[in-house]
């Protein structure tokens, strides 16, 4: 049994997901071809007339007769295969499209300045490292914010002493914060 992968280092898209998609596509296309075969089988398997002349004329006239049947059967195949493949695409790709859409909402929420919670996707969703990377970024920002506010609060404590000490401590705290902020570029 393989060990669970560390958070944030997992694959963006699992191999199982890709194989599952290919397998479903295979079944889907096989079904479409099967339906096409059935239509053509029923069109072609009508018994030919018993006598020689009847068979001759039937075979001679079969090609023009088969042309619309072939066209309609291919059309039916195309419509069915397109319909089922579209449904399959929507069903399978929502495991990528859903998280992507959710991340877009989260980014909009972040930009609007609204309070945010940790982002998490559904269990079977793909692109999980995206949520983990975003959470790490926001976590780092929050950690830094708390550190800067703590530095300021610490400086404010000195205001219980004389004014000059308070001001000196505050200016020292501000220099420290400015130095800390220098890592952002």
């Amino acid at each position, binding site marked *: 049994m393989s060990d669970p992968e560390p958070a944030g280092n997992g694959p*963006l898209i699992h191999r199982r997901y890709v194989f599952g998609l290919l397998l479903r596509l295979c079944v889907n296309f096989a079904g479409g071809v099967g339906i096409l075969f059935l239509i053509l089988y029923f069109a072609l398997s009508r018994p030919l007339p018993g006598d020689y002349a009847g068979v001759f004329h039937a075979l001679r006239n079969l090609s023009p007769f088969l042309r619309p049947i*072939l066209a309609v059967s291919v059309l039916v195949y195309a419509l069915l295969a397109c319909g089922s493949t*579209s449904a399959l695409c929507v069903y399978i790709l*929502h495991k990528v499209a859903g998280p992507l859409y959710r991340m877009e909402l989260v980014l909009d929420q972040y*930009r609007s300045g609204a309070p945010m919670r940790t982002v998490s996707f559904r269990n079977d969703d793909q692109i999980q490292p995206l949520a983990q990377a975003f959470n790490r*970024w926001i976590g780092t920002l929050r950690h830094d914010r708390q550190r800067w506010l703590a530095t300021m609060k610490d400086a404010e404590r000195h205001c219980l002493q004389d004014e000059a000490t308070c001001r000196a401590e505050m200016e020292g705290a501000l220099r420290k914060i*400015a130095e800390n902020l220098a890592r952002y570029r």
Partner: protein
Amino acid sequence: MRNPALQPARPRIRYVSPRFQGPAVLAFAAIIVTGGAIFWKLVDGKFQQVFLNAAIRGHYAFNSAYDIGRDLLAWHLAGLFAGVFLTGSVLVLLLVAATRHGIGKAVDSLRASADGDLSTPTGTGSIGEFDRFGEKIDAARSETLASVLKIRSEAAALAAGGISPEEFRLRWDELKQRIRRIAP
């Protein structure tokens, strides 16, 4: 007891994102339609010959037209399936590669952001949905960088001194408020 009408609507999980799934659906549809058209063209052409040849040849040892065209049909159907499935598989692999590339860049960009790099562009590529997503990430990062730089310059200006105590206190409190607004 809570009135369900007053409860906020739970956000719906969206399964359909036309910008992402739409092009994939269209690409698969194009493959299927192209495969069908090629199949129709080939089989129609062959049917025109094979039944005429069988009629002329005589010795009708078959019960139906299916007995004549069975092998032809089987090979062409197998070709249709193989062609459509293989092309579809290539498309799936391309989609997966594009997703890995686009989202991989976004993940790298967010990881770099956690390390303080908020200015390097995400560069998710030119594929519509990922490009738009990368732009959103870049917009969020650049806004964060702008507010961080503003805080930094304000902190540096206050630390430089030469400000009256009243103004200093006022700007100190404003700075605290500004810091509180980062990643609320």
